[in-house]
């Protein structure tokens, strides 16, 4: 069963690589922001999966909740900034 979760972890890490391509390559700034949102969604899931592997879900879920809320704050800061600044 642990092997299955490790397989899941590796698959999700490769998915992060795809979003990282979008962050680096993205033609506009907003593509990069979307890539960052995708990466943080994967990071939230990875946190819970790691908790399942270690059998300490209650601790790792707190990290995931923190990620989710920070992700929201960061996305709002970026969006506000870009709205006032315009595209570079």
């Amino acid at each position: 069963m642990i092997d299955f979760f490790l397989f899941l972890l590796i698959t999700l890490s490769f998915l992060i690589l795809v979003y990282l391509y979008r962050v680096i390559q993205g033609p506009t700034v907003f593509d990069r922001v979307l890539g960052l949102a995708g990466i943080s969604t994967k990071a939230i899931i990875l946190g819970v999966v790691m908790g399942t592997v270690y059998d300490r879900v209650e601790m790792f879920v707190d990290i995931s909740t923190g990620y989710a809320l920070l992700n929201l704050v960061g996305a709002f800061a970026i969006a506000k900034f870009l709205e006032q600044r315009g595209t570079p």
Partner: protein
Amino acid sequence: MMYSVNIALLLLLVLTAASATFLVKELMSSVFILGSYSFFLSLVWAWLGAVDVAFVEAVIGAGLGTVLFLVTLFDTAPKDSRLRRPPPPLAGVLGLPLLGILLLLAANDLPQFGDPTSPPNVHISPVYLQNSYADTLTPNVVTSVLMDYRAFDTLIETVVIFTAGIACALLLREPGS
């Protein structure tokens, strides 16, 4: 064995994000890539079992750091946020990977992760664990080490942070007041 596969993958992601910061042409994109780098780094910390470090890295690195960098960019003129880097020197391009390989070779001689016979686990840790409550009457060992055995260290650290705060307040105050 299987555990190290995943840590290798996560470290690869950290490396990719770190090198991508040097490839982009504008500061804003490097801020975003730096944010994703912090996410990966805190995943690595969580995978190694250091959950508190992971939490601090996520909060300060990915959340607060990104916002602070953006606030700084907000006060920067658009022409200053473009980057024109000279090409890296040849000695760095050749020498740094060699140095990395040397460090990796040296890392083989380090004791295993959580090895009970490694020097710190034989000499220092049992002393702290056995005597800390009798010495300091503090139930938490980490607190007693930080606040009692290394009190001067912590005090000077606090002084450094306080000085940095005063410097920031002096630099950022309103000119008129």
